């Protein structure tokens, strides 16, 4: 039994926006795998809820005319993993979200909920950062799009304007971002299922036509700071370099310039840094191999 003040159910995005404007204090609930847990803990006890779970228009993956991949915010992790467009263009995202919790959570949990929580450990977040995803929000003033790195404000807080009645409606991956890119995600956790990441590392590369040179390398981490973050120094260093194991090593060492994991009872800072370097190296090597490179 949940301590819930009221539940409003939206059947469409318009209804959701109207409900938000009407009940500004209400909490949005999608799959509920985070919100209900928080309510049970007493953190959101007595909350009003607006459920958007019934808005089927926000489900599914599609391609827009300009080649942008559009992932509806209510698309579940298990659907993302099994989606042919995802598998073809950004397979690493499907692999990453396939490591969330267990099968039940992956069936109920949504990518919108995963990102709107604003937590650094979310399994989708590092890959979405590494692929320069764009967050689409819809409110009373229409649609607003912003890069995912601007969407995350601080731990547990994202740029979603309740006063404008906004809800997140899609996660977009621009064509320029995924074209010819290959990536790998390493979830470092304390067990092989039902866990949150101690560190999440997502790397992707685009190689030259001859597969010898790195045209672009991107790397993002979860739990290496209060929000998911990119390691720009390593990315700049690798750009234009000849593919090699030695490059993988240098790329990995360079990530320490930009990440700032903290000491907590869950893991020590020096341990997280060590794992970040090792994971970056392995994910870089794996990405290069997926892109057809040899090292």
């Amino acid at each position, binding site marked *: *039994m949940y301590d819930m003040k009221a539940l409003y159910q939206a059947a469409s995005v318009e209804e959701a926006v109207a409900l938000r404007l009407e009940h500004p204090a209400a909490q949005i609930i999608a799959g509920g795998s985070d919100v209900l847990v928080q309510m049970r803990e007493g953190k959101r006890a007595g909350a009003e809820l607006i459920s958007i779970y019934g808005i089927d228009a926000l489900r599914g993956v599609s391609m827009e005319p300009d080649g942008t991949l559009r992932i509806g915010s209510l698309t579940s992790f298990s659907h993302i993993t099994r989606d042919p467009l995802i598998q073809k263009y950004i397979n690493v995202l499907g692999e990453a979200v396939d490591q969330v919790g267990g099968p039940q959570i992956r069936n109920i949990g949504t990518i919108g909920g995963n990102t709107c929580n604003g937590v650094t450990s979310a399994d989708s977040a590092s890959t979405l950062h590494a692929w320069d995803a764009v967050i689409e929000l819809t409110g009373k003033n229409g649609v607003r799009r912003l890069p995912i790195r601007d969407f995350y404000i601080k731990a547990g807080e994202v740029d979603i304007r309740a006063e404008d009645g906004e809800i997140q409606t899609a996660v977009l991956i621009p064509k320029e971002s995924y074209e010819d890119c290959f990536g790998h995600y390493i979830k470092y956790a304390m*067990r092989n*299922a039902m*866990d949150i990441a101690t560190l999440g590392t997502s790397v992707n590369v685009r190689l030259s036509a001859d597969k010898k040179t790195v045209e672009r390398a991107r790397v993002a981490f979860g739990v290496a700071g209060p929000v998911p973050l990119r390691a720009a120094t390593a990315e700049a260093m690798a750009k234009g370099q000849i593919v090699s194991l030695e490059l993988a090593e240098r790329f990995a060492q360079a990530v*320490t310039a930009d990440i700032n994991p903290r000491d907590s*009872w869950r*893991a020590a800072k020096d*341990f997280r840094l060590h794992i970040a370097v090792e994971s970056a190296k392995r994910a870089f090597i794996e990405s290069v191999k997926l892109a057809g490179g040899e090292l």
Partner: protein
Amino acid sequence: MSITVGKSVARVDAFDKVTGRTKYYEDRMPAGALYIRIKHAEIAHGFVKSVDTAAAEAIDGVVKVLTCFDVPDIPFPTAGHPWSMDPGHQDVADRHLLNRHVRYYGDDVAVVIAENEVAAMQGVRALKVEYEELPFVLDVQKAMEPDAPQIHENYPGNILKHTDIRKGDYAAAIQEPGLIKVEGWYETPTVQHCHIENHGCYAYEENGRVVVVSSTQIPHIIRRIVGQALGRPWADVEIIKPYIGGGFGNKQDALYEPLCAWCSTQVNGRCVRIDCSREETFVSNRVRHAIRFHIVSWLRKDGQLVARKVECFSNQGAYASHGHSICAKALGSFAQIYPCDHMECDGWTVFTNRPAAGAMRGYGMPQASFADEANIDECAAAVGMDPLEYRMKFIMPKDYHDAFSGNTNYFDSFRACLEKGRDAMDYDRRKAEFAKDTGSVRRGIGAASFWYNTGVYPISLETASNRMQLNLDGTVTMQCGETEIGQGADTAYAQMTAKAVGLKSYKDVHVVSCQDTDITPTGLGAYASRQTYMEGFAIDQTGRLLRQKILAYAAEMLGCSAEELDIVEGNVVRKDSGAVEMDLSHLAMTAQYNPVHSEHITAESTATIRSNAYSFGCTFAEVEVDIPMCKVTLKRIVNVHDCGSLINPALAEAQVHGGMSMGIGYGLSEQLLFDEKTGKPLNNNLLDYKLSTVMDHPDLEALFVENAEPTSPFGTKALGEPPACSPAPAIRSAIYNATGVSIDTTPITPHVLYRAFKEAGLIHDEKEGD
């Protein structure tokens, strides 16, 4: 062919459990039961000065608020031990139903009773508790220091109990020239049972008595404790135990039954319920004792142990519960498993401001096995011997006899198990192959043994009762107080009863699974791996009584002597010819409806068991260690047990699998953590407490050496707890073999490996944390 003992028959409760029909306490809940929610202390040590209940009482649906100032001043014990008529051997009575003296973060200080769960929870949040805070201590040895906070009166140094074992002359023996000293400190964690069904219960008054339906392993003992806690005659209390979703020792303790019963008496006998959340289960039930060991071994160059010093510091937490029994059992194993002429062993059980430690599967032996086997690995290394060879040479010999328990190692069980494991793992070849691994990912193989026994004789009473009745269809209904808690006891009882009476099949026995202390013959419950062994005596004895009654009636019908008759496969037969005279249904119908001599044929008896039995075995583990990632992958794990003749091989195997799973978590991931600054538990939930999952296990392999136990009518002995004892040290040993790094702490998490590998120079970080 009869289907009784020794067959892998399906569990008697399998169909209902798989189809969701089995009724647990919540499934039997009377309509309208009031919800009790507990206010747990938010300090680790201090006194409750006041509780402001006004806001809670104002909440719609709240029926009553009761605090630590309202409860009777009756301290009571909680351990699920048999009562002792010797006051010096009774459990420590150190708890109140609600406590003004808060001794751990999570102690029970007040309750809110409400019409629904939400109101009860809101009520708890609305309580304002004012505390007088005191310094607290979490570490077992710090608690023994002179200036440490005192947690209970009359326990100087917070020492609940100290015992020792002295053998030979340790001080003189270590003077022998040329001895090699192998010394270590070994650390084991606080862990929790994590049974699937959290503890819960409900209570109501009926005809002036109080009834408690509880998820417990020990209904008859709970009756006594509820009586004690409420200051009422024990017979005023009726405990009903339905099916339960596991216990592993946590429910071998009075948890919330006394509080629930008392709350009912405070609301005019209305039905009230307490349902522990998982978070409460971790903190406010019981945990496994974290024990720190200090071992000093002195050996000759050939490996022979000359003298050993062992110190055990057992972290009791805030309340005595099972107390020193765990530490004493751990201590006792050192004196036996690797016999040594000169020993100086000391064990201290010490109060700290942590959750109370109680019984948990293995009862001190997972701790002792980890420490002892780690030290033995070091001993082997110190003399350049293979650790398995070392064990084969020095572990307890055949015919070893322990005068105190009367136990004898009749069959050289350790070596038989180790040999079997060695063959199954292809140990020698694999070890040689793994020795070639030099890269960043290395494989290793290890083994570890454990010492165990069966039940609690001669330290405590061992008794088992049993009632059998012959039904009109020729089947037998059987009842006993040794409970089914998920382990499969009912199925084993059905198989044993069929054998004892002479029935065709275990299906001809109906075991009454639910215990009701008003009805069920008195038993002690499920603990100490005792049920099959102890109840076996009662089944054998009562089975003979029932047979006598059946045969006496048959003889009367046939006009012959009962001596001439036997019961075979459910028929009364002539002993000499084997000729079938009648089936048991015919006999039962005749006896029941005989207008001249009607008889409802039943038998009941109590067996006092005055024996014990060793139950030994070992684990072999193979690991792959990814050194840069500080990660261990368990590739293979095999347990080998000599637990006597198997009553049901498939169930025995399942029992071993469960214990191995628990042992894997103990070795690699599980640990309840506390904030050093506040004493607050940090990870009392199943996300942050890393219970191992099926994805963290390889296939679990169970092997048996079946030496029939001479003292048991069915040749059986302990198997409930033993499987959990040796996986952790075997994994430790395999990691040592793979990397050369000897870890003295369990669980061996990536955090532990990171520090150890760094220290050993196996990993280097170019840039250290700033």
